[in-house]
């Protein structure tokens, strides 16, 4: 218990730090997959992939699901899943439209209402999962229908135009390039830094890891498991609304079907990024890179003139192969057996 400061380093040189590979194995792995894919695309379709346009295109579209993937990473690390975020995207954006287009309120009030809606949806999910102990896989399917249904009823199934004339501020925030840089990716970077800091440099983030690793241990040591999970779900709600607004403004129109088609891309980004479905481990860097890999496949396959039907095939291949590789490499690095986790 003495607090000498002079010798903070371990006395014995037998105490070796885990290798870089061991510590950052899965993050390096996903970056490797990303670079490899890029090379393949360059060789396969040099005309497309040496042109800046393709990068602009997927820098605009990938963050639309990637931003949610950042938040979903927290939920998955706690050992849960949220399948309701596509509906939250729509409900949040719908509330914005109701407040501004129908209610005549200014855009910033609309934003507050939209984010409050997202937070409430997330809190509700978190309450059901953490407080009532209902499996998240089951209950968020339920709330997904609930939120979507609510949105369809409120909007009566109709859309709302979101033109740049009517909503100049919203277009400046969510769509127009920032000094020529795709603002969607700028947001992805900003929110990525926010998420990284939350996960790696706050108590909340530390508790996210502990809760996902061993809930009972965490509780025995005084971690409030219910609150940690509720906050993680709330984060998804907030980020989903952000993405819902960004997506709607990008298309100049609010569709009542907003969010459809986002589910698998988003979840794939989290798992491809090396976050474990068993909870307790995961990384924001991984999710970030994986988002762009998935975005690149989308954009790449289409712009390379490959039949769009191949997109899913390529998707499937990349995801299956890289998740399998990641798992194998990780076990190799950790020195674990093939079956024992």
């Amino acid at each position, binding site marked *: 218990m003495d607090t000498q400061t002079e010798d903070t380093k*371990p006395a014995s040189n*037998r*105490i070796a730090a885990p290798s870089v590979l061991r510590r950052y194995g899965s993050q390096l792995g996903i970056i490797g997959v990303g670079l490899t894919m890029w090379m393949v695309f360059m060789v396969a379709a040099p005309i497309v992939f040496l042109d800046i346009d393709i990068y602009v295109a997927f820098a605009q579209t990938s963050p639309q699901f990637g931003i949610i993937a950042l938040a979903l990473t927290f939920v998955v690390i706690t050992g849960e899943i949220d399948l309701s975020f596509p509906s939250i995207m729509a409900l949040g954006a719908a509330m914005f439209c109701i407040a501004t287009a129908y209610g005549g309120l200014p855009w910033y009030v609309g934003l507050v209402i939209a984010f409050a809606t997202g937070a409430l949806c997330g809190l509700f999910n978190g309450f059901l999962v953490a407080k009532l102990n209902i499996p998240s896989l089951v209950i968020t399917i339920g709330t997904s229908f609930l939120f979507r249904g609510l949105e369809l009823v409120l909007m009566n199934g109709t859309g709302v135009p979101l033109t740049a004339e009517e909503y100049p501020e919203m277009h400046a925030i969510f769509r127009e390039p920032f000094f020529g840089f795709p603002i969607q990716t700028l947001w992805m970077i900003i929110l990525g830094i926010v998420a990284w800091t939350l996960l790696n440099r706050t*108590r909340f*983030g530390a508790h996210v890891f502990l809760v996902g690793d061993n809930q009972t*241990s*965490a509780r*025995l*040591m005084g971690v409030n498991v219910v609150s940690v999970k509720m906050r993680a779900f709330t984060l998804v709600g907030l980020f989903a609304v952000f993405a819902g607004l960004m997506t709607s403004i990008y298309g100049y129109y609010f569709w009542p079907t907003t969010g459809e088609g986002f589910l698998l891309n988003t979840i794939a980004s989290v798992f491809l990024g090396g976050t474990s479905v068993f909870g307790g481990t995961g990384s924001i860097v991984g999710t970030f890179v994986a988002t762009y890999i998935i975005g690149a496949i989308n954009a790449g396959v289409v712009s390379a003139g490959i039949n769009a039907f191949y997109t899913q095939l390529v998707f499937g291949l990349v995801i299956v192969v890289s998740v399998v590789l990641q798992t194998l490499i990780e076990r190799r690095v950790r020195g674990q057996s093939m079956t024992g986790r």
Partner: protein
Amino acid sequence: MASDSNATSAPIIELRNVSKTFGEVRAISGIDFKVNRGEIVGLLGDNGAGKSTMVKTIMGFHRPDAGGEIHFKGKKIHDWSVARARGLGIETVYQERALCEKQPIWRNMFMGREMRTKFGLLDVHKMRSEAARLMSEHMGFTSAAVHPDNVVATMSGGEKQGVAITRALYFEAELVVLDEPTMGLSLSETKKTLEFIANIKKAGRSAIFIDHNIFHVYPVVDRLYVLDRGKVAGTYTKDEISMDELIESLYRVARSGKME
């Protein structure tokens, strides 16, 4: 001796008529128990007697059944929780160790009481270096597996235990609860752990010590509780009973449920 001189000041922790029921099972019932300042209290009893349940109730992990009271330094506590208990200076080595095995040692060491910088962000650097210092100086672990960045899962059983024990001692808690801390430890590690407990007393702090090995418990404690089937079967100060008499009466309790 020590307990006499402190008799006037309020006990660190006191349970009054505390019971805990899990469904049909009444794990502990009507427990009266206290730990005075500077006192090492031993807790003995058969498997399933309710020792660990009592510890977890003291820690706020279990909420006692209605009618039970927990007093901390003479004040009745209403909303007791693990975070609150730790905040007030009670640390525990749980029987099940309470580690998160996929996490690095430093995260386990500071689990639930993470260090922060003045900006409110985690002080990861400090936690790492403190964990490294504690593991080598405090526990004397020198194996390559105990670098602070290594995950707990790959450590040996005794090393894992070392993490749990070091963690409980690190915060210099007023009351340290040790639920079978020597289980699975080597001879020299056991000796070291018993010395730690003796040091707790020297520093004027208190401890609750649970162990099935009477030869470990008897020498370091001031007072003893014997638990049987969820009830306090007897309590002794050390000058009231010799080790042989204690062993004799423990057998008697196991047979009849009565001390005398």
